[in-house]
């Protein structure tokens, strides 16, 4: 299991050091600094073995988190734990920065003592942790006996993510379907790979211990449930989508999903990620990028890029940005664009073309002349792909939320009393066209 956990700043100074196992000595702290943080070459693996000691690291802005062990630990678990650790810290004091870590070091030690015991991760749900570890110090001495046992039963219990007795005057919930659409297209317009990775994020303000049931237009779910009425199957079959795979928050009863394809759960209070999914079929690609690069002699490059929006004319895409890479020996750039603003950013070696809004079924164009310095460098320019960023108000996978039902048998509010909001946002993930 994890033998120790260290946090360093960018200089390699240790900010937090917590050792759980006897086989990890102080020299491990230095070994990581010397061999990884101060290493001359770029780090080539997130797992490093130095003198039979393994170091796992993740980096958040300029902070290094390293877990150390001498055993054959579950590597996936260690990384999951490090991410979780970052989430927990972020939930307590916001951005993970040197300043924040130094300001909260006592709190971090306390958290580390609680969520990692002898190197074994324990309950790390922020909701539960916040009931007894607070930024203002511990309040336990003032707790009543009932409160204490409520804490412990929540921390260890089946529903470790929610405490009992939550009350809201207005029961309300928000569902965000957040998708990022990824594309790799050849210069000729052939889709090399495309997939959508989506998340359903729920923000709930519900009283008591509500049972929720979530439904969407997934093919398998619909087919399974729609057996009774053949009519409905054929009707909804048209709009249903094929989800390649999905994963759920730990509150979802997986065995029930496996057997009945129904997504049922008692949600944590506040915001959480209900599920993640991935689709690869019938993706609506919101934009098509058509590049045209022409080399004119050795010192000039002509680039023309057309973008076409491919969705309902009534919808508006936002925050559109097209990034056209330029060679390293670029000396000057002239750009003309039909819409938005375009600028050559020498420091980023790219022309950045920004458009605030664009409706569906439209197209726009940019042309640029790139002057090159003559070089005797034989190496050809690698021509990185043209990438694009945008945001659209629909789900490119075609996913639709069909229902989210809420039952709370003990309290007297029904599904109808809950105010529900659903929002779809499609963003670009890695959306690239080779040129």
């Amino acid at each position, binding site marked *: 299991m994890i033998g120790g956990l260290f946090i360093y700043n960018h200089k390699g100074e240790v900010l937090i050091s917590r050792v759980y196992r006897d086989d990890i000595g102080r020299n491990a702290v230095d070994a990581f600094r010397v061999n990884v943080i101060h290493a001359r070459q770029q780090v080539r693996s997130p797992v490093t073995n130095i003198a039979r000691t393994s170091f796992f690291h993740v980096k958040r802005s300029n902070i290094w988190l390293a877990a150390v062990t001498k055993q054959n630990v579950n590597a*996936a678990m260690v990384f999951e734990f490090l991410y979780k650790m970052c989430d927990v810290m972020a939930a307590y004091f916001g951005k993970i920065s040197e300043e924040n870590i130094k300001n909260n070091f006592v709190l971090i030690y306390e958290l580390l003592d609680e969520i990692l015991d002898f190197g074994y991760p324990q309950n790390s749900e922020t909701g539960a942790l916040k009931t007894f570890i607070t930024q203002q110090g511990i309040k336990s001495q003032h707790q009543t006996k009932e409160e204490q046992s409520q804490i412990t039963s929540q921390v260890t219990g089946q529903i470790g993510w929610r405490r009992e007795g939550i009350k809201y005057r207005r029961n309300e919930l928000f569902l965000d379907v957040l998708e990022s659409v990824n594309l790799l297209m050849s210069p000729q317009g052939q889709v090399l790979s495309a997939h959508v990775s989506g998340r359903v994020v729920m923000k709930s303000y519900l009283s008591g211990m509500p049972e929720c049931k979530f439904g969407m237009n997934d093919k398998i779910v619909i087919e399974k449930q729609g057996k009774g009425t053949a009519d409905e199957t054929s009707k909804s079959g048209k709009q249903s989508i094929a989800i390649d795979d999905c994963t759920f928050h*730990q509150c979802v009863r997986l065995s029930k999903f496996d057997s009945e394809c129904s997504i049922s759960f008692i949600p944590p209070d506040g915001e959480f990620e209900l599920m993640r999914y991935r689709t690869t079929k019938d993706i609506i690609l919101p934009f098509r990028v058509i590049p045209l690069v022409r080399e004119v002699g050795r010192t000039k490059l002509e680039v023309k890029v057309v973008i076409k929006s491919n969705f309902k004319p009534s919808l508006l895409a936002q925050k559109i940005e097209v990034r056209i890479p330029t060679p390293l020996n670029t000396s000057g750039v002239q750009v003309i664009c039909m819409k938005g603003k375009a600028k050559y950013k020498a420091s980023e070696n790219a022309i950045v073309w920004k458009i605030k809004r664009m409706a569906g079924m439209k197209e726009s164009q940019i042309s640029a002349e790139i002057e090159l310095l003559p070089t005797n460098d034989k190496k050809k320019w690698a021509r990185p792909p043209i990438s694009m960023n945008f945001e659209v108000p629909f789900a490119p996978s075609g996913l639709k939320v069909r229902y989210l039902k809420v039952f709370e048998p003990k309290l007297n509010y029904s599904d109808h009393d809950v105010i529900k909001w659903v929002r779809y946002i499609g963003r670009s993930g890695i959306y690239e066209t080779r040129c």
Partner: protein
Amino acid sequence: MTDSKYFTTTKKGEIFELKAELNSDKKEKKKEAVKKVIASMTVGKDVSALFPDVVNCMQTDNLELKKLVYLYLMNYAKSQPDMAIMAVNTFVKDCEDPNPLIRALAVRTMGCIRVDKITEYLWEPLRKCLKDEDPYVRKTAAVCVAKLHDINAQLVEDQGFLDTLKDLISDSNPMVVANAVAALSEIAESHPSSNLLDLNPQSINKLLTALNECTEWGQIFILDCLANYMPKDDREAQSICERVTPRLSHANSAVVLSAVKVLMKFMEMLSKDLDYYGTLLKKLAPPLVTLLSAEPELQYVALRNINLIVQKRPEILKHEMKVFFVKYNDPIYVKLEKLDIMIRLASQANIAQVLAELKEYATEVDVDFVRKAVRAIGRCAIKVEQSAERCVSTLLDLIQTKVNYVVQEAIVVIKDIFRKYPNKYESVIATLCENLDSLDEPEARAAMIWIVGEYAERIDNADELLESFLEGFHDESTQVQLQLLTAIVKLFLKKPTETQELVQQVLSLATQDSDNPDLRDRGYIYWRLLSTDPVAAKEVVLAEKPLISEETDLIEPTLLDELICYIGTLASVYHKPPSAFVEGGRGVVHKSLPPRTASSESAESPETAPTGAPPGEQPDVIPAQGDLLGDLLNLDLGPPVSGPPLATSSVQMGAVDLLGGGLDSLIGGTNFVAPPTAAVPANLGAPIGSGLSDLFDLTSGVGTLSGSYVAPKAVWLPAMKAKGLEISGTFTRQVGSISMDLQLTNKALQVMTDFAIQFNRNSFGLAPAAPLQVHAPLSPNQTVEISLPLSTVGSVMKMEPLNNLQVAVKNNIDVFYFSTLYPLHILFVEDGKMDRQMFLATWKDIPNENEAQFQIRDCPLNAEAASSKLQSSNIFTVAKRNVEGQDMLYQSLKLTNGIWVLAELRIQPGNPSCTLSLKCRAPEVSQHVYQAYETILKN
């Protein structure tokens, strides 16, 4: 509230000031001071001097302060054990606190203080806490048992904590169950034999129930534990699989990977004909693909595991090639891993796409990645024959880019393609030749030279090209020098008229001006070959080359099976068994997949392998000409698989082969070793004398200092048979030289003089390397001890038995004959350690009928001892593995005539007899090798 200020105190006298503050009456000030201490401790300053003062702060009802003091205690208690005792009372008191959080905190901290005296006080509170009414306390106590076990294992067992821990597996609270499982698993690892985690269908059922209810981390503990269970039949395996599959949808990647591990393992037990087997295969692909959308570090772990899974069960992901396409912004470690998997998944169906991608990658920035991509294109050509042409044209396009390292890498792989598809793509040679000047890496230069030599007859200016390399011959690396030598000899054999001068030049460069023994040896071999029998030389040098294999870098099947049992863990990331990177006995218990069930491919069990020596009718011991040449030619470029360079060892192997084998005529007709110069063919003239004696040194090699096992002297020639001369003797091998230690006793009444010795031709060409020198006449009843150095370059004739040596000894009285058997281990050379990959390849390559199995009885040695004993006799352990409690030693040895013998020695602790399996291309040596083993091991 900015705690960061505590980090900034660096002035002198700090400790003193802190001391004062710690003893202050004001609570706030105390707390501040402790915080400062902790901050100093974090940065690495030694604040142990403050121990008593900090411990004094412990008796407080301020929980925050208490936690800080505990943190300090965990760090320094070990350095101040006596002081630490001061804390005990507070701990014991806290274990009785009404607040469960405080009870748990006390137990948790006490377990972290590794001081014996404190541990003693821990038993009672721990016993209580294990049965506490509050689950939070119980789950903490469960882990504490593991902590205590780490400090004092005996005590934990004596106090019966293990039984209590086992009871917790049936606890009503899922988290308590999970922690108990984790603790028990860890304890069980250090006691591989104990039946601690007594898993049975009932307890498995409990675990599976808890699996649905506990935290994500708990699920990981339980799944990892389940993976160690061996279901009793396929029905049980299937029912466990059914209950584990829902975990594949968990958001936590570690839960998913651990579930994959359980499924991969138990799948072994399911019949392939079962519908469920197919369903399960289908269910495994999507979650594995989803892992690739996780954060990059997890992607890396996932990809390393997928690499294993693809090798074990290629069918799972065969349609998912696209998801392994590299993204521009992937970190380099993800890119390299993806590329690896792409090559493995490449098939005729997807090759077009793969090639297009690879070509794209070859234009990227990262040099390593680009090289690997170019190499991958070559692998595709070799793997998918239909694509070879397209691959070659892609490679040519890349060569046209003139990017230096791309060109070099491309030439290296094109050489492999030529090997695989001879006489198909030679039209590209012209293009390759254009790039000759830009090659500056040895591997690429060597590859290019190989190509020029191999196709010398089609390249008009081959001699000019090769000559141009010759100018800076001594600045080249060995690899290039060797290649150049071979290429020019090839050229000479193909176009003898124009290139005589060139070949003379390279031979003299190689033999006279170089101090590299490998190069010199190869030079001499060619020289002699060419001068004695050019036709034979042609057959040797231009022989047909063995084909190269399609798949590379495959993990050896037993290791792969073991690694599958470690999916998700570090072992699967390193692709090494835990014993390779974990110290001590912990966690190195060997794991293996359950045996496959009947319905499909039943593995051959080793027991069915033929035992005993193979029957007599076998080919000659001395490898047939063909074999030899294969070896010799193999070394041209080393194995195409681009593993670690093997050229060096195979060069020597080839050289010795030749000397022991067909070239005896060269050495001269007498059984006495002729003075080397006499044997040198005249036409090449050169001052070879010094060189040749070097050549003979070669048999002595560079060896370990300790010698091989030496048997006590035995009487070989009794006095009554030899007119009063008694000879006893033995054979020794020390630092690479063999000698015959003789003891001559004169039991006659007259003085003996004029001793001489001669050997008959024998299987391994043993011959005296010097005349028998008995300086003074041997008077009656006198004994002399003589050590006669032997060489293995004498004439060869197969003897029966193989190790029979017929000796003639002459003195002034008469000539006497006797024969003796020499132990084979004197022929084991010092460089007989084979490279692991080579070993693996060779082992597979040698047909099974050549395998012989022997029992060595009454040899109560452990693997370590056996290995070191054998090593001193030049039997080298290439790899060691533990399979189901048995130690398996994989060993290699090489005979003076270049025959390799591969061995697998299975040692069972507690069982005095061990099993030896031998594989060798010349199976009749096996029997004698076995005898050598027996002699060495038993002495």
